[in-house]
Each structure stands twice: as structure tokens, then as C-alpha cells.
């Protein structure tokens, strides 16, 4: 279908362009130019954003005169925003900017479980901003990411990262190499030794957008897209058990094959919800995509129990939607926001699913407006929802929902308007990484104790600098975060690049 539609579009474009006499049009445009031309909308979106940033920077510069940014030499790091001041203590990491373009990150985290036992690493990166606060989001301090060692895997995005407690499991994904390639390989990264080992063959097709959850002793991989060009879904899955370094297939899921679903691990089951019906498979000659089995098929929620290797269809709940979020919350599952798949309405409703009773219940209405592509995470006792976008653009506000009290409370705004970001939590911090339209920074932490946001230093590897968007997964290591691989788009033409690099942020101290 894509090939046919593109062929028609190109032919139509050629006909339209052939109808234009460029000489006449050029002369007509010059004739229309008044001497005192005032554009109706003189500023394009990027320029408006730039001005907003400069204004924000001015606010910080003024505030900076009133607030002490650094307290002595105890490596206590502080970030200032217009409302609050937060301190992030990172005594274990020091960073020295030796020369323009070179950042030496020396790690002295000997007592941290995340500290590599190898010698301190030195990384040469693109220049980082070193001038005094020129932006409201400029990081203050030296809380540092460190690059992880070279992995055996190739560049990719839309892969999964799963933390086992000892290792980071990287599996699957996609990249463009003379056409899209869906990967079926994986590797395990040990942050203590800063080393990788390759995983054995999983025995299933390469894929992206799959579920990957840690069940306590194994990684469960299920579903996903096996042909990116045709958006072909799959219902098969496998377990990977690190103890035996082996894979084991699971029973196929019931019901229509789907893509772009959400999934969470509740402690006993993997809950699967939402997604699109698969759009078919490639024809045997490999040239076209077949028609979908049923593009309007209803997709029931599913639950998979690894103990019994069985699936069950869960109770029908809220209306089908896309770009909503699913969060595991102390044995229950919380669903929030998105766009209705039926009415195209933007949604701000939330639902709770209890696997024990197989029942859905609607959450109280919160303070947030309808949105999609937001982040939502479970932070120990609350679900935090932030960012995303609505019809008018990107959003930065957020709120937290406490299932115990059934109440919402607003939280401070994200330091930037962001959609499609990735998020993960430790006991103390929420990390928001990448997403659409980040500018000078693309990683922020929310201190869950003080409810304050901080901007993190630029990630050294993969780099993503000015006007760059990062699409990369992030995983919590319990007392730190790690990101590996992903895709970045930068520059006016949104140049796309896939990566096989990663960085780790240690918050153990």
C-alpha cells in the first residue's frame, strides 16, 4: 500500500510542478514585494522558541544574582529554577573541563555497585556549554553521565532495556541499513565491570516495539513488529533466563495480532493493553504488504501468567485509545490519557485495573488537561504524569495520583515542554530522557523527596546537541540510570542517526 500511495503522490507532485512556470512566478513574487513589507507572522515557531529561551535565561540571570549556586567545595550540586532550589549531592564523581571540546570524566566510585572496576575512563565528546548560566535549563554542577564500554551490538532504536538487578539486557530493535532491519540479537551489560556479553539466539524473528519485562528471574519478550515496512505484528514470545543463559518459547497469545501495545508486569502477570491491529504481512515475493486481516478488529486486554504459561483475556474496560500510558502500581495497573481510537477525542481520564478481581474502575478526574505522548511512571506510592502534547502543542505540566487516597496533586512543571520522552525511576529520582524538541538539555530529574526538577548535564554518548531530538530507551538500575542506543534527529533537516553507544548515571551516593 505504501508503495502504491507513494507512486501516486510522486506522479501527482510531478504534474503539479509541471504546471508551474518558475520564471513567471519569480517575477510575480518580486513585483509583490512591498518596500515596507510586514510579514503577518514574522516569527516562525523555532524563532519564537528561541526568544522564549532567551527570556527564560534572563530570568535565571536575574535570579542568579540572588541565589548562591555553589556551596563550598563539598561537591554539593545545585540547580536553580524560578520557583525552587534543589541540591543533588554527588560526591563521588568529578568532572574537569580541560580544553574546549574535551571533557574528562574521571570516575572514583569505588564503593558503588555501579562503579566499573576498570581504570577511570576518559571520553572525548563534542563541546559542552561551559559559559555561565545562559539558559534556564543549563545544568549547574557535575553530576555526570559516563559512557559505557563498546557493546557487541550494532546501532539501533526501538529496542528494549531490562535491568535484572545485576545486568542490563538489551534486545531487538530496528535500524535503517539499506532498508529497515529488525534485530533478533541481544547482549547483557554489567555496570560493575563495564563489560558486555552476547546473548544466545532467541529463536524468534527480529522485532521492535515488543514487550520486555523482568519477572524476577527471567526476561519475558513478547509481541512487537517483525516487519517495520508493513507494520507486521506477531503474537509469539520467549523467556530469557540469565541463570541458564537460555531462551524458552511461550504460548502464543489469543486474539488478533497487534502492534504498538502497552504492557506492564504486575508481580504475577504481564498485562497487555491497547495497540493497533497488525496491518498485514509482506507478500511472498517480498515486494508488497498484504491487506490486513481485519483493520478494525477489537483488541482485548490480555494477561500472561508465566507460572502456568497461559493467557487470559481481561475484562473489557475503558474505551480503546492510542498513546495512553500503562503503569504497574502495587499489583494494580493504572491507565491514563491518550486519544480515543473511536472518536479521536483527546482524553484525560484514568482507570485502574485490579488483576485479582478482573475489574476496571475509573480514577477521579485530575488537574491535567487531555493529552497524549506524556510520561507516566510509578514512584513508589504515586503515579506521576507529566509532559506530552495536546491539540495546541507540547506540554510541561504534571500531576501525581495517589491510589491510596484517590487524590491528585499538581507537581512542578517540567523544565521544558516535552512529548514522547522516556522515563524511569529509582527510589529517589524520576528521570525523563529525550523526546520531541529538546533544546539545550534532554535529561531531567525530579527529586521525589523534594518535588524539584533539575536539568542534567548533556549525555556524552550518544550525543544529542542543539535542536536535537532523542528517541532512546532508559532503564533504572536501582541507584542509577542507563540509556543505550536509540535514534537522534538533529539540524534543520532532522538528520537521522542510529547509535550503538550508551551512558550511565550513578546516583548511588
Amino acid at each position, binding site marked *: *500500500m*505504501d508503495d*502504491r*500511495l*507513494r507512486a*501516486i*503522490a*510522486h*506522479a*501527482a*507532485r*510531478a*504534474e*503539479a*510542478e509541471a*504546471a*508551474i512556470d*518558475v520564471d513567471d*512566478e*519569480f517575477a*510575480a*513574487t*518580486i513585483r*509583490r*514585494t512591498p518596500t515596507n*513589507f510586514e*510579514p503577518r*507572522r*514574522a516569527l*516562525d*515557531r*523555532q524563532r519564537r522558541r528561541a526568544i522564549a529561551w532567551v527570556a527564560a535565561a534572563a530570568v535565571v540571570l536575574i535570579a542568579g544574582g540572588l541565589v548562591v549556586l555553589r556551596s563550598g567545595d563539598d561537591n554539593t550540586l545545585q540547580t536553580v529554577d524560578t520557583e525552587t532550589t534543589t541540591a543533588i549531592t554527588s560526591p563521588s564523581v568529578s568532572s574537569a573541563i580541560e580544553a574546549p571540546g574535551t571533557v574528562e570524566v574521571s570516575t572514583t566510585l569505588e564503593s558503588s555497585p555501579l562503579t566499573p572496576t576498570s581504570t577511570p575512563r576518559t571520553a572525548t565528546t563534542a563541546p559542552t556549554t561551559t559559559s555561565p548560566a545562559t539558559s534556564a535549563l543549563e545544568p549547574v554542577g557535575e553530576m555526570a553521565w559516563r559512557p559505557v564500554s563498546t557493546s557487541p551490538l550494532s546501532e539501533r532504536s526501538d529496542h528494549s532495556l531490562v535491568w535484572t538487578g545485576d545486568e542490563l539486557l538489551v534486545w531487538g530493535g530496528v535500524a535503517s541499513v539499506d532498508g529497515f532491519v529488525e534485530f533478533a540479537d541481544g547482549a547483557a551489560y554489567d555496570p560493575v565491570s563495564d563489560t558486555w556479553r552476547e546473548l544466545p539466539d532467541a529463536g524468534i524473528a527480529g522485532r521492535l516495539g515488543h514487550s520486555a519485562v523482568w519477572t524476577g528471574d527471567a526476561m519475558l519478550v513478547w509481541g512487537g513488529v517483525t516487519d517495520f515496512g508493513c*507494520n507486521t505484528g506477531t503474537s509469539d514470545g520467549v523467556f530469557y533466563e540469565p541463570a541458564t543463559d537460555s531462551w524458552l518459547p511461550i504460548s502464543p497469545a489469543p486474539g488478533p495480532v497487534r502492534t504498538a501495545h502497552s504492557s506492564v508486569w504486575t508481580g504475577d502477570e504481564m498485562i497487555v493493553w491497547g495497540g*493497533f491491529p497488525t*496491518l498485514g504481512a509482506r507478500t511472498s515475493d517480498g515486494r508488497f504488504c498484504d*491487506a*490486513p486481516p481485519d*483493520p478494525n478488529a477489537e483488541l482485548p486486554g490480555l494477561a500472561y501468567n508465566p507460572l502456568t504459561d497461559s493467557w487470559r483475556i481481561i475484562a473489557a474496560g475503558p474505551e480503546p485509545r*492510542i*498513546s495512553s500510558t500503562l503503569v504497574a502500581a502495587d499489583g494494580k495497573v493504572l491507565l491514563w490519557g491518550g*486519544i480515543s481510537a473511536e472518536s*479521536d477525542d483527546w482524553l484525560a481520564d484514568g482507570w485502574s485495573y485490579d488483576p485479582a478481581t478482573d475489574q476496571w474502575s475509573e480514577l477521579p478526574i485530575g488537574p491535567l488537561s487531555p493529552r*497524549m*505522548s506524556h510520561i507516566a511512571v510509578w514512584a513508589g506510592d504515586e503515579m506521576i504524569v507529566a509532559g506530552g*502534547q495536546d491539540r495546541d*502543542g*507540547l506540554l510541561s505540566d504534571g500531576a501525581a495520583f495517589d491510589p491510596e487516597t484517590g487524590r491528585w496533586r499538581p507537581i512542578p512543571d517540567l523544565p521544558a515542554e516535552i*512529548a*514522547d520522552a522516556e522515563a524511569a525511576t529509582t527510589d529517589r529520582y524520576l528521570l525523563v530522557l529525550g*523526546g*520531541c*524538541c529538546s533544546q539545550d538539555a534532554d535529561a531531567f530529574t525530579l527529586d521525589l523527596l523534594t518535588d524539584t526538577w533539575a536539568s542534567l548535564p548533556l549525555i556524552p554518548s550518544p550525543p544529542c546537541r542543539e535542536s536535537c*531530538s532523542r*528517541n532512546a530507551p532508559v532503564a533504572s538500575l536501582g541507584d542509577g540510570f542507563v540509556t543505550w542506543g536509540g535514534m537522534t*534527529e538533529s*539540524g*534543520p*533537516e*532532522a538528520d*537521522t542517526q542510529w547509535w550503538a553507544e550508551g551512558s550511565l548515571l550513578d546516583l548511588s551516593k
Partner: protein
Amino acid sequence: MTVTGAHDYEEVFRDVFPRLVSLGVLKTGRVDSARDLAQETMLRAHTRWDELATYDAPAAWCHTVMTNLLIDYHRTTTSEQRAVERLGRRGEHAADRIGDATATPALDRWHEIVAPLPDRQRLVVTLYYADDLSVGQIANLVGTSRGAVKATLFKARRALRPALDAEASRDFQGDSNG
């Protein structure tokens, strides 16, 4: 008016103008509207060329402005005008709208296919299939997220698939019979 800079205005105009018009025609279905919007875009570029000429990609700036104008076009065009255009599309060929006798079967076919789509889906589909922009590029252009673009494309594909499959089936039968 002489315009100078790292990029030459006329050179960029000749390169980018047909692309802007074709984008406008494929989106709005009207050559006159597309030509007006493309001219408006290039007028804006002309009046600030001293600055634009130093940009790495002034064509990208023009593309962004044209896209914004197309979004505004839908917002500012009255429902009455849009109804007239929709009615017009059913009975006339693109060649009529162009104002010459040139047959434009592909343009006609394109408009027949995308006519049922909501305005935003038509814009995204045009940028994706006719302009060959990536999801990320479209997200930047229309000021939305990659996820929103993907969702829009998904819905558009789902809406268009029956018509395209039927056409493919007709072609296949035609080939077989032929």
C-alpha cells in the same frame, strides 16, 4: 531589489518554489491557492533574505513557513469555501483548476484518494508520501511529536487502505485479463 548572501535568493526560489506549489496543490487541491501560499512564503523569505541567506538550509525555512500557511489556510478558510471546494473536486479535474488543457490524471487520482481524510491527516500524508519527509521531519514541521505523526499516519493508512486495495485488485485483474 538585489538580494545577496551566502545563498542566492533566485537560485533558492527556483529550487524550492515548484516544491512548495506541489505541496500546496496536493494538500488543498487548488493550484491558485497553492500558488498564492507559495508566493507568500517566498515574499517572506525575500524581505528577510539578509538573515536567511546565512542559514544552512533556507529551503527548510521556506518549507516550514509554507506548512504553517497550509495549516492556517485550513483554519482561515470558511466552511462555506471548503464546501465549495469539496463539491468542486468531485466534478472538475485538476487541469480545470490549473486553467489549461493539460490532463492531470495523477493529481485527480490523488485528490480522489485523500479527499475523505480530515485536514490534518491530509497534510501529514502529503508531507510523508509526496514530499518524502521522515516522521521526525514532519513532527518538527507541524510542531507536534513523533508519536502524534505516527498515530496520524496510522489512521490515514487505515482509512485509505480499502480504496487502494480495491485499486490494486482492479489492476491485478486488468493485468490478468490483458
